[in-house]
């Protein structure tokens, strides 16, 4: 059905172009680079026109379009420097450079830079706080990708690891346990403040390790379940932990989590005065105020790069190949001598580790860890990132995470404002509804639509991992070769 529709559209398209003198044969006779260039120029031109007529035009759109063209049109795969193949690093490095410099061109000294164009419907470019959240959620999505993408285990309780990491930061870098007074490089701690205040960098590592241990503890009894049973058990853990956090203000009279109020304030990250004076590193991220979370953003970029590095290296390691083997056929993998339980537990622990680090950083960034932030929908939110981007593909997962985080923090608001401005009460074009639509209220329904549509139409995601796509389209041995019922 879909294939026939696509063929019909394509035939009509070439029919029309043929009238203009560009037949299919002449087009395919052109060199590939020229065809890529023509297509890219057409798409960029359409985008620029959309920005000009539906968004807010700024001349800076032109250099942006030029950068996109330079990145998209040539094939960098074969580029070598002194005989070494470096081609596949060019685009990631360019994207990284664009990301690192984002605070400079998107923000001026007194706020959001007016020099950037505004996209149609989506509006302004993301705020710095959104960029920080994008980095944090990319880390979490990559962590979940170890479990869902590589090992093929559905985890519906990933928020539990996020919560553990967040509360680790709350316990080790705040005044929650005022009975004791332990200090080790805590930032922004005034004289006479009690509680445990440990440098946030150590807390990140500790949170990762503790969360990984929690992953092992949760994983050992549950990972021998298969498929959807495992999903439900993880969901159970993901539900229990936030409840414990919510009711944990008097566990046998001991205030562990401060209940619904959450733990606040949590120390911000920073390097302290010694590093500030000798190496020029920022002393206290929290005290900077007007630099729009710049340091938080660069730090999360570093953390994200480490996560990407670990993801890529682990995927290609012996362990990573064992994960993929288990995903494709558990029985065959076991027959080849892969220890199932140990391999799965490693996937769980690794995924949990990055979830914990991200959670601790999130808590430190927000200055609080609150039980209301850890509910089932967040687990699914992170799962949508992985599924939309492409299970098992690092770049796809990051793309999905950035896009969905943007939608959740700003995008839906902007889209709602645009819709209400054009079709809502007092709208400029023509009025369709009479009370303003609250688009962000429907965020999870929108993610639900994304889940269903992606699973039905493109289960391998936006940027598929080639191997995963083959599994979805050709089936795995787990499944019957034909379905008599259909």
């Amino acid at each position, binding site marked *: 059905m879909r294939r026939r529709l696509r063929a019909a559209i394509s035939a009509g398209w070439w029919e029309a172009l043929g009238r203009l003198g560009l037949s299919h044969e002449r087009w395919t006779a052109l060199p590939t680079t020229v065809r890529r260039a023509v297509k890219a120029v057409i798409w960029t031109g359409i985008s620029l026109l959309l920005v000009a007529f539906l968004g807010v035009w700024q001349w800076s759109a032109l250099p942006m379009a030029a950068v996109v063209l330079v990145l998209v049109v040539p094939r960098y795969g074969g580029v070598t420097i002194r005989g070494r193949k470096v081609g596949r690093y060019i685009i990631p490095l360019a994207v990284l450079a664009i990301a690192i410099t984002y605070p400079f061109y998107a923000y001026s000294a007194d706020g959001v830079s007016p020099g950037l164009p505004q996209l149609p419907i989506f509006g302004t470019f993301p705020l710095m706080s959104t960029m920080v959240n994008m980095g944090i959620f990319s880390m979490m999505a990559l962590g979940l990708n170890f479990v869902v993408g590589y090992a093929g285990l559905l985890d519906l309780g990933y928020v539990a690891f996020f919560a553990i990491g967040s509360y680790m930061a709350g316990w080790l870098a705040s005044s929650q346990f005022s009975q004791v007074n332990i200090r080790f490089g805590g930032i922004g701690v005034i004289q006479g403040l009690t509680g445990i205040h440990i440098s946030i960098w150590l807390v990140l590592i500790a949170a990762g390790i503790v969360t990984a241990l929690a992953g092992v503890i949760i994983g050992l009894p*549950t990972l021998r379940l298969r498929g959807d049973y495992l999903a439900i*058990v993880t969901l159970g853990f993901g539900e*229990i932990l936030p409840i414990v956090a919510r009711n944990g203000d008097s566990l046998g009279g001991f205030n562990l989590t401060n209940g619904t109020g959450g733990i606040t304030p949590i120390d911000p990250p920073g390097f302290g005065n010694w590093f500030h004076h000798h190496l020029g590193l920022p002393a206290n991220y929290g005290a900077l105020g007007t630099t729009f979370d710049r340091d938080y953003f660069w730090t999360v970029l570093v953390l994200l790069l480490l996560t990407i590095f670990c993801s890529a290296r682990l995927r290609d390691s012996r362990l990573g190949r064992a994960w993929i083997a288990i995903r494709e056929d558990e029985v065959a993998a076991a027959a080849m001598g892969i220890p199932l339980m140990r391999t799965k537990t490693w996937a769980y622990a690794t995924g949990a580790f990055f979830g914990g680090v991200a959670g601790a950083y999130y808590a430190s960034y927000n200055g609080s860890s609150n039980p209301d932030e850890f509910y089932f929908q967040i687990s699914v939110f992170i799962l949508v990132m992985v599924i939309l981007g492409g299970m098992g593909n690092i770049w796809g997962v990051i793309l999905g995470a950035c896009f969905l985080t943007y939608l959740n923090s700003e995008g839906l608001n902007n889209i709602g404002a645009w819709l209400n401005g054009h079709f809502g009460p007092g709208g400029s074009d023509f009025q369709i509804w009479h009370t303003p639509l609250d688009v962000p209220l429907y965020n999870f329904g929108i993610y639900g639509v994304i889940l269903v549509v992606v699973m*039905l139409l493109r289960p391998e995601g936006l940027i598929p991992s080639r191997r995963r796509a083959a599994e979805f389209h050709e089936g795995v041995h787990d*499944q019957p070769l034909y379905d008599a019922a259909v």
Partner: protein
Amino acid sequence: MATHAHTEVSLRRRRSYSSYVMPAVATLLVALLIAWLVVNFVKGPAYFVTIGFIGLTNGALYALVALGYTLVYGILELINFAHGDVFMLGGLFSATMLLSVFHLHAHASTLALVAAIVGSLLVAMAACGILNAAIERVAYRPLRGAPRVAPLITAIGMSFILEDVAIGWKGPGYTAVPSLLPTGPVFSVAGITYTWEKLIVVAITAPVLLLLVWFVKQTRQGKAMRATAQDRDAAAMMGIDVNRTISFTFILAGALAGTGGLVYALYFGQIRYDTGYQIGLIAFTAAVLGGIGNLPGAVLGALLIGFIQSFNEGLLWHAPGSDWTESIVFSILILILVFRPEGLLGERTPEGA
């Protein structure tokens, strides 16, 4: 269907170890639970029984929802995550029917009450049945040949979509249903009171359950359902229209959810977009506890969960209280899935390893 032998290589050591320790721990836990119940009973027998009636009522309600999970799991081996939300929409349908179509109010005559309830019940059953079958057609059927987690993921997506349909329809707040059922006592003996509203809940639930059992055991369509559940390919070869049977199962499950929604709206009096998620997970736990795929098991599990919930929230002597109800239910879910995935009455499935 995935029915291949699961590898036992890495599990053999665990099995022998757990075969001694786990029964001992389980026995100890059950003994503690019974001791706790006995002490509570001795401290206040009449109160205990009254709390027990609440548990029975809740359990009857959970049974309606749990049966929907079990029916669908039995035939497709799919956890229909959206089922709880179909139940919630059933509650909203019923509330709308009762209040806006039949214009019921608290002082309506008995005849009007019965007519309105039966009318709303039929509408809610039909609407939820059709909705459930439509969900199956759109979100699950195209994924029959895909990996097992794919339909589960679309089920979660459908669950979110249905919740937002409810938000768009009724808003994010509670939809209130004024107390329409009579709340007077049916009997009051030695301090034990049993009220009419609880009796009515059971009186709606029990016939529906009996009807379902009769249907699955006795009719031709029920036989087709059981055959499809047992072996879909063989059933197709025997001339059973498998797709139609599956659709029919979803209609049946949806109708049960619709009944549950009506009962919930009448008994608890308020319903909201996320009610289905909470009740759905509790009911799913009940289905797993009884042995998923097993109809009497679902009812047994639902009654047990109902009693556990009411005793936990109602009893006075060392009860954890309502803050911990969800934790207890999910702990039961995890423990059952990990240590006895076949449930109380079920048979071993490949999932359980």
